[in-house]
């Protein structure tokens, strides 16, 4: 059930099969990102893969002495490019791997183009997705809906990506979906059809308990992508943006050239892997620890009290940089995060956000939002998300002052597009479209839970919120998930408690949710859960998803 390993094994197999000699990896724009998530350049270099090329680049040099490993998606465009490539081959031999199912007629086209007999292998290897963590994947499909319905190319790509996940993990699952979502139903049925159309492909050794695919819709929880985050990975994505494990730091004031873009990969960066899910404070402490240790060695007396000190320290001690190149990278990232947090009063904003999401005191919440809206330091972006949160939370409250808050936004000078967007978010994730209990108001069990939570005292006010998917899976694992709300797509049902679960969220997941799934895995014996989505959101990308989707 480890998706990173699944893709990695495919790539290793390709390299192995191509035999000894100098090699070039020929990929398309998507597969190059799939591979880069699981393999570092230096790692493949050791296996004699010296070059990486895009198949779309027609100006490649002729290098007949290289063996080409070609890993591409089976798109029309790629078939055409491959056909051209084989007619006038640039490399000595070709090993061709498609990341998904390819039609017989396309194979025929290629065979006929290969008059020079340079092809040595044609296979399907289903590494057709971005493996983010061992238990999380994304399909890089943004803005998948229009008028609350699938865009047809997005549905096709999502279906392909999801079946590739199943094939790479050798799972032929039972499928459940969120009944309130037309899109979830549609996807569930399409997957079911794909499987039954090609049953031989999905003919795996039966396990005692059939695996389960649970398809959800982002609309059932629009709150999670609105919140500011405080665990490392989630926070970096929210404030700086992670794209294929890369972070663009070129906008950071006074950044040095080699740090303008940094790679954060849990596969290759130990510090990152260990601190992925630690919160901001803990990471600061960890870095400080490392530096103290180094200071002891270098007998320096300078005190490190703040993150600014840390940055100065790294700059002054080139040896330290050398010793722990990765740590200096993280110092920069953490430094930038803390600058942004301070600049925009994010702690204060987050406190109110969490209160909105987790507490029930309407008047207090309203008062605090109003206070924040009056402060200049607060970004318009955060002002919008607060009002959107308020809208989602108290849209039907008797004293709801949503209109008043919208007015306040307008007075702040928020442009009309963004004002419109706030309304759209409330519409997107509102009670009518979510069709489930998001805030735990109706459910008495949830109420008592909340009550106990309150008694225990909150450990960290900034991380009180738990995403809804955690509750949903809780119920699923207790076999309490209602059939009516989450029906099976076929007549057969799972009698036992599920063991291997794949959760897929249409409209994208968040890093907060991958953390939640990680925690469930760690806390629950005998269960393995992975989560995936059309994409991974922060507030910015979620805004776009909503505005194109409604």
């Amino acid at each position: 059930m480890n998706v990173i390993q699944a893709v990695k094994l495919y790539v290793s197999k390709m390299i192995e099969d191509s035999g000894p000699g100098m090699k070039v990896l020929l990929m398309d724009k998507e597969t190059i990102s799939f591979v880069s998530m699981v393999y570092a350049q230096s790692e493949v270099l050791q296996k004699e893969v010296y070059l990486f090329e895009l198949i779309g680049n027609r100006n490649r040099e002729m290098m007949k002495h290289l063996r080409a490993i070609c890993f591409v998606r089976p798109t029309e465009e790629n078939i055409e490019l491959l056909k051209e490539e084989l007619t006038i081959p640039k490399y000595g031999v070709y090993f061709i791997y498609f990341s998904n199912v390819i039609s017989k007629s396309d194979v025929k086209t290629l065979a006929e183009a290969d008059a020079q007999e340079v092809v040595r292998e044609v296979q399907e290897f289903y590494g057709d997705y971005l493996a983010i963590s061992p238990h999380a994947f994304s399909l890089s499909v943004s803005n998948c809906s229009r008028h609350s319905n699938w865009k047809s190319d997005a549905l096709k790509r999502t279906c392909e990506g999801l079946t590739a996940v199943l094939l790479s993990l050798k799972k032929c699952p039972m499928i459940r979906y969120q009944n309130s979502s037309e899109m979830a139903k549609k996807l569930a049925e399409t997957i079911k059809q794909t499987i039954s159309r090609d049953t031989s492909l999905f003919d795996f050794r039966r396990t005692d308990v059939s695996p389960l695919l649970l398809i959800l819709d982002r609309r059932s929880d629009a709150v999670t992508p609105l919140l500011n985050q405080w665990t490392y990975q989630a926070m970096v994505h929210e404030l700086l943006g992670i794209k294929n494990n890369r972070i663009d730091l070129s906008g950071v004031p006074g950044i040095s050239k080699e740090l303008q873009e940094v790679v954060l990969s849990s596969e290759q960066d130990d510090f990152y892997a260990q601190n992925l899910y630690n919160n901001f404070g803990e990471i600061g402490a960890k870095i400080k620890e490392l530096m103290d240790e180094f200071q002891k060695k270098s007998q320096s007396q300078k005190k490190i009290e703040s993150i600014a000190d840390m940055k100065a320290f790294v700059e002054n001690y080139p040896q330290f940089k050398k010793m722990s190149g990765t740590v200096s990278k993280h110092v920069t990232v953490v430094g930038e995060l803390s600058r942004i947090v301070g600049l925009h009063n994010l702690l204060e904003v987050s406190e109110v956000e969490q209160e909105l999401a987790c507490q029930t005191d309407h008047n207090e919440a309203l008062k605090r939002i109003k206070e924040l809206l009056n402060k200049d330091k607060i970004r318009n972006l955060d002002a919008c998300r607060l009002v959107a949160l308020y809208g989602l939370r108290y849209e039907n409250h008797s004293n709801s002052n949503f209109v008043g808050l919208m007015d306040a936004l307008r007075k702040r000078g928020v442009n009309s597009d963004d004002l419109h967007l706030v309304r759209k978010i409330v519409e997107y994730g509102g009670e009518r479209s979510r069709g489930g209990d998001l805030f735990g108001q109706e459910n008495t069990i949830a109420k008592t839970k909340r009550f106990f939570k309150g008694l225990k005292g909150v450990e960290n006010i900034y991380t009180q919120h738990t995403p809804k998917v955690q509750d949903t899976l809780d119920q699923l694992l207790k076999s309490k998930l209602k059939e009516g709300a989450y029906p099976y797509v076929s007549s057969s049902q799972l009698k036992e408690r599920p063991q291997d679960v794949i959760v897929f969220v249409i409209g994208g997941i968040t890093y907060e949710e991958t953390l939640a799934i990680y925690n469930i895995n760690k806390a629950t014996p005998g269960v393995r859960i992975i989560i995936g989505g059309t994409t991974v959101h922060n507030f910015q990308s979620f805004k776009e998803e909503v505005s194109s989707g409604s």
Partner: protein
Amino acid sequence: MTSLLGRAEDASVQEGFLCPVCLQNCDSILQLQWHVESTHNTGILKSHVKDFFGKAKRFIRSGVDTDRLDGSLSHSQEHLDRGISDDGDSYIGSDPFQWENDLGHERSHWEYFLTRRSQTIDKVVVESNKLLLRLDKLVKQGPPWSDQNKRKAFEKKIVPWVEDSSSKFCRFCQEKFTLTNRKHHCRLCGKLLCNKCSFYMTYSYCECVLNPTPSNIEASKKEPTDEEIAHALRVCKDCYDLMENHKSRVQEETSKPMVVQLYEKISEVMEMVQKIIPDYNDVVECLQNAGENYTLEDANTRRSKILKMFDMIDSLSKKILTLQPKDKATNSATTVALYRRIRANVVRFLQETSLELKPLPSEEDLKRWKDERRTRRLEEERKARAQEESKQKPKSSPVRTLTQEALKMVPKTHGDEKVGKGWTPSSIDQASVAAMTDDPLLQQMNIISGYLNQALQDGKWDEANVLEENLKLLQREYREQEKRKNAAVAGFYE
């Protein structure tokens, strides 16, 4: 893409021979070798084996990626994690970062591709062979022609020309044939085409197609003379492509570019190094046990052989760097990148393998080991004698002599093991080990190899085996760690 590749160079290639332990830059592989041996030689260390084992294990367990250390270990771990352990209520779940799986599903289209391809290929091969036969006749029996009409008649005899009336249009440009746009025949297939769409094959080019020897290839590269152009064969694009493909294919089969020759040599030597290193290490080990199968000379010759190979790999890869890309004008950036990365990989190989190489023992070492071995053997003999004596005279005068023997044995840290105390290595200076390096893994490795040497010297084979296994485990982890470190620094693809 080129910009992507360009940037990778800055980050990924750390040129030179950096010591993997302290990052000191050494100028040549030999110097690095010497540096590693003199500076990072395994010291003699102090602590108890058990104590240290606990530490090592704890260290390994706390690492994130234990699964990569040892499949079976993590497997049982995973079982435990998934709650299949039998200690009742302490059930916990599993860490996704330790999940393992096999290669995913795969589906091959190779068979189908092959049948489809051979159908196409057959046609091409038949056609191409036919044309080659014709070309052969045209060239061998043809020139030089002085009379164009005679030539035409000859060419028509070899290749039947289609009727002029068979088509009104050129099949390539679709233009109508007229008085000015005359009809022409391809000399290889005999079909019609217009002047614009004609290709010409000079005789030296034809020779090269028919028989691509180096001299013919050279000749065909020359700028053709006016006379040659006048006598060139008019052909259509289809025929020209077929002949050109045939030519380049035969050429590729017969000639190897310089970089490939060098690269193959490097790979070959690398493979040899990997074979000979265990052999050398065995010899050194044998010497350490004061075995008599090998002499210091044996070790020395093997070692200098390895070092010579290192040198060879080094200079071969440097030679690759100096190669000039054939096509200087166009984007040779890729070729340059290729050469640089080959070099980077070679440097990494040299660094890693020189770590595996055991240091060469000195004469004094050898003497010391021999002495130790001799005293050990003497004692064993004495012990054996004692045992025999005690067997022979079970009751009469045994007690005194036995205890005496036992007493003599005690200071040599030997016989007391039988009493149940077990064996522990003696003085090992942990502080000195710690001073050498910051990496806890390396420290542990140094400590272990110190223990291992002692165990071997003391003839404690069981302990030595355990130690050796542990050392291997640590080495593997260290390599993984290095790999990841490199990876993190290098970034990916750009």
